[in-house]
């Protein structure tokens, strides 16, 4: 029972992170048609920024978090401008370029952090919120969930209530038609990857105090983001969030009761099942012929 309740709470926290990871990937794929394999590394850079700025140089957590978001957004924007834009007609080329970035960022992390054991960052918000003697949620985690939800809410507002958000969604639906209607593809792509980078940086910065930071932590992120993206329906943001929460429950519970390996394995198999049975995902729209 204790394990069960604790797992429920953990699932919601995980769900927040999974959403942040996946929504950025979905946005870039939807709007630009690029599979950004370096997305996990963007999260990793966000976490490293916190380790360097906050843990090493003593910058307070919140400003460090803002810097992390800014840095990762910039990396994203540079990727779009110099790597994805020239390869817009060649989706394979964009994908390969993102693999190149993946290697470069991993090595950059090695250079910055040195080899040796994974890094830990002490939680800036100490203390634990005690619901019951057996059910405790550290404040750091509450903060992370609150910020994740706020960020996703803000994104939702941006996409549905602003003109820019509207052009993003139009482009995700049909790039050519959007271009014909006078939507500036370059600018819209830039915004998409900017938002994607900001979310990745934010996720990394929020995770930093609760996880071990190492150059290969992006691997787990990208696998999870793929599973969530496919299950939720490629191009569907609400689908991604729903799938993220569902998958977080599955992953947390299977990890708690069986093993982490089996948890990831079952996620992958569910993803394959969705690809076979309903390639548009649980929330995806029907694509007309």
């Amino acid at each position, binding site marked *: 029972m204790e394990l069960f309740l604790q797992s429920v709470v953990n699932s919601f926290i995980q769900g927040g992170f999974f959403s942040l990871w996946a929504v950025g990937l979905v946005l870039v794929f939807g709007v630009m048609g690029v599979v950004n394999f370096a997305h996990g590394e963007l999260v990793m850079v966000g976490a490293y920024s916190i380790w360097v700025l906050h843990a090493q140089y003593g910058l307070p957590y919140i400003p460090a978090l803002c810097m992390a978001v800014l840095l990762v957004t910039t990396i994203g924007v540079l990727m779009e401008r110099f790597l994805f834009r020239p390869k817009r007609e060649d989706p394979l080329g964009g994908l390969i370029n993102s693999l190149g970035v993946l290697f470069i960022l991993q090595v950059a992390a090695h250079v910055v952090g040195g080899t040796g054991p994974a890094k830990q960052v002490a939680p800036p918000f100490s203390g634990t919120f005690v619901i019951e003697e057996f059910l405790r949620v550290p404040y750091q985690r509450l903060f992370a969930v609150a910020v994740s939800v706020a960020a996703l809410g803000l994104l939702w507002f941006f996409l549905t209530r602003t003109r820019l958000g509207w052009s993003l969604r139009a482009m995700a639906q049909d790039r050519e038609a959007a271009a014909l209607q006078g939507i500036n593809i370059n600018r819209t792509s830039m915004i998409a990857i900017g938002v994607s980078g900001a979310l990745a940086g934010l996720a990394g910065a929020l995770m930093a105090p609760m996880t071990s930071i190492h150059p290969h932590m992006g*691997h787990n992120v990208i696998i999870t983001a*793929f599973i969530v993206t496919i299950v939720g329906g490629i191009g569907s943001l609400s689908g991604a969030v729903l799938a993220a929460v569902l998958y977080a429950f599955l992953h947390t519970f299977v990890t708690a009761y069986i093993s982490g390996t089996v948890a990831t394995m079952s996620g992958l198999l569910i*993803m394959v099942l969705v690809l076979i049975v309903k390639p548009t995902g649980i929330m995806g729209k029907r694509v007309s012929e």
Partner: protein
Amino acid sequence: MGANKLTHVAGTAALLIALVILPGHLKYHHQDFIIFLTINVLVVVSYRLMTLTGEWSLIHIVMMGVGAYTSALLSKNLGVSVWLSIPLAGVSAGAVAALLSFPLFRMTQFYFLIGSFAVGEAIRLAWVYFVYPFGGSSGINTIPSPELFTIDFMEPIPYFYLVLAVVTLCLLILHRIENSRIGLTLHAVHWKSPLAESVGVNAWKYRTLAFIIASIFVGVAGALKVHYLGNVTPHQFGVGTMVFVLIWVIVGGYNTFYGPILGAIVLSILDEAFRAFEAIRPAIYGVLLIAAIMFMPRGLESVPGWFRERLFRKTAE
């Protein structure tokens, strides 16, 4: 056309002769290197057969693992002769590919790429999870080497000749497949699948066929690797390794049979040269990869043609 073919034949012959003479004159460490390089050549060439159909999979290296585990388990646990377990490794990788083709080839393009990645990763995690029979994350150790008369295949030089013979035979077969009717049909499936279907080509069947053949040969490559290394772990077949295969194929150029071979050889030698900078080697790969995609989309194999063209233009003037 004729001259071009002659260059290819001459080049291939020279390379083979060099490979036969070379190993005796190398240091131990370099003998290792050349064995793995030769195996990797088979990995990239078999992968290219798959890409002919226009589908880029991320499961190829996992199929290599299927071959490796099969041969390791057969020879170590069941006492099957290594001479038999190596071809059986190919057969089992082909059989697994045939089974996987049912779910995988319901997808195409991006979905296939991601689907193949997911299935591959799930298989790899199964090797991690099931300690019996796969040995978990530490894998299987003390895998026997082949035995023949008094030749010691634990030594790099005899093993190298074995690998060279097997890989050469496999490349000959793959080359023949590509230049046969089947190769032409695979090309056709790639470029305009509806057009190919409209003249009676069962595109699904040919995609599956390419996947199975590619898996058989990469399965053999996996077995060759495992009986030299003596151990096999799930880590050897991770997506990181797959990315290197992609890089070799793309930087070398996937439009010709020779491109991926060139890519594997040139990049592996570069990689050796950068051994001193162990930590930053992946970044060098990353930069090379991006440079190749941005400035040399047809790969290294286009470089000789480019020079030839300039040379001819010069002489024509």
